[in-house]
């Protein structure tokens, strides 16, 4: 157990040690980074045009929109970076011989795969939380800006105009945040599993990313084109498509799903969200099992 924990930490350290990791963090958090800038610009512009004070509720809407955009963009570009990170953790380590050194110690092969997966998940969690915290900070800044502005001191007037009480100060409730994390976790677990299976066949991270992403897009395009045609032939195809790999990626990360959860209109157990993350979990387990099976038979010759 202690060895396993240590292995996870070691993998996380290796990921963070790479220069790519910094790029990854920046790219995934581009929305929050731009958001804070946009917020200030918007505030100054509105004021400059003589609209007077901007209500907090307006800024709140902006930040909230950005938060949804952050999630959507994160879901959209994460696979590209995930492929690279997985490629580095497996393909590059196999070709450079790090994997050999790792397997000379008394760790088991499934432990290596599990530790690497968990380390990548932790890294992803760090990335998504960074953006979330950034946007939350934006919201707090927005509030203090709108509060502090005005000709009169903020406490001199009842500032019901400035602060829209109906708007909560926090972007997400704890339960929505938790649910979004579960969705992100499951969706990305499936993707990581998918990439690991590919990574075990390639010794170049770039080649592996290219191939696996092409495969992913191919499957997805097929699903988009074929499913609408096929379900005209037989309803059976519709139910089959329900368990399709990319369909659930799509559903898990769609703006609809995210908004439903953010606005507390639904939760993890709502029908279409439930099937989506349930089948994603199924796929994740399948990919993980294939990866462990392949890896335990793999000859380490570098």
């Amino acid at each position: 157990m202690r060895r396993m924990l240590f292995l996870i930490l070691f993998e996380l350290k290796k990921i963070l040690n790479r220069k790519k990791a910094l790029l990854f963090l920046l790219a995934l958090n581009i929305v929050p980074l731009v958001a804070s800038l946009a917020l200030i610009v918007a505030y100054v512009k509105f004021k400059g045009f003589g609209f007077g004070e901007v209500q907090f509720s307006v800024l709140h809407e902006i930040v909230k929109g950005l938060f949804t955009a952050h999630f959507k963009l994160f879901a959209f570009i994460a696979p590209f970076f995930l492929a690279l990170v997985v490629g580095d953790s497996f393909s590059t380590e196999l070709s450079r011989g790090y994997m050999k050194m790792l397997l000379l110690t008394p760790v088991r092969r499934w432990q290596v795969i599990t530790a690497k997966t968990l380390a990548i998940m932790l890294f992803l969690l760090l990335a998504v939380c960074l953006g979330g915290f950034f946007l939350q900070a934006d919201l707090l800044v927005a509030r203090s800006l709108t509060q502090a502005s005005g000709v009169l001191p903020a406490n001199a007037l009842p500032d019901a105009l400035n602060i829209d009480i109906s708007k909560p100060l926090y972007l997400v409730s704890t339960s929505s945040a938790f649910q979004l994390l579960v969705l992100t976790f499951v969706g990305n677990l499936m993707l990581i599993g998918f990439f690991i299976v590919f990574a075990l066949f390639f010794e170049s991270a770039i080649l592996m990313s290219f191939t696996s992403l092409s495969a992913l897009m191919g499957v997805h395009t097929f699903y988009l084109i074929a499913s609408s045609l096929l379900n005209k032939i037989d309803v059976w195809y519709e139910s089959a498509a329900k368990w399709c790999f990319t369909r659930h990626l799509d559903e898990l990360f769609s703006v609809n799903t995210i908004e439903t959860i953010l606005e507390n209109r639904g939760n993890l157990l709502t029908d279409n969200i439930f099937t989506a993350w349930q089948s994603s979990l199924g796929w994740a387990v399948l990919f993980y099992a294939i990866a462990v099976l392949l890896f335990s038979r793999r000859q380490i010759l570098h």
Partner: protein
Amino acid sequence: MNAEMSAITVNRLCKNFGRKQVLKGLDFSVPLNTIAGFLGPNGAGKTTTMRMLLGLIPGIDGEITMLGQTMPGGRTIALEEIGAVVENPAFIESMSAYENLYWFGSLYKPLTDQRIFEVIEMVGLKEAARQRFGTFSTGMKQRLGVAFGILHRPKLLILDEPTSGMDPAGRVHMREILTRIHDEEKTSIFLSSHLLDEVQRLCNYVVIIDNGRCVKQGYVSELLSGHSEKWEIRVVDEDAAKTRELLAAMHEAVIDINQGPRGLVISLQTGKSAEVNSGLIKAGVRVVALIPLEASLEETFIKLTGNGVSVGGGA
């Protein structure tokens, strides 16, 4: 566990790469408390055997027992007592020697900083402890590999060509380090090499394989006894012809006489050198030097592996 437990026992080990049969029923065993050399021409299957011992190649056809544990079931338990480096040690380039040892070594068992620095000092890398691994020379990399192997005080250290790519001074240093590890930490060492003189100087046990089979194994002293010794005799130039005649007459001691570059090279029955020397001196030959040529293991090796051509490799 009995007292006569061997460090490594291999029975009927086979391995194919595609259609090529690399190991064809390999059998050998290495006793504990030895420095054992694993010899063989290039392509004989040394590295493959080591990879199979350590589980880097899964799916064993045959039997492997290490420190009383049967592979692959007992791999994890056995590896806790084994330190190993196969081929070139591949540590993480962007991390320092200390960090690499800390992170990789802690996968064996928790380590203290004191132990890490003790090991770093033992292999002579004290000055480079905080230096990035990527900037290391070949010799330093190999030494760090050995350091990684002994961090957790294993009972058995398995090394694959620990001196490959090193200069002569580096090889001497490596031999000193390995001898020290064997003496101070009571670690058995199993190392593969095709540098015969090195194995002869360092090891007290050898396993010689060729073409996927074990052709000879045993203690070096046993292997060499009963075999002829080679000596080079240098005499004052005027006495050369006379020496040759005298030697030719000593049938019971001298097996063979050849002209070497700077003197005569003779093969003697083991232990007859003193007799030959005194015979020459009594006859009035001014012997300048009598130099032992320690090529015996090489001869044994070439004789056993059949051809001398494939031996040259990295020598």
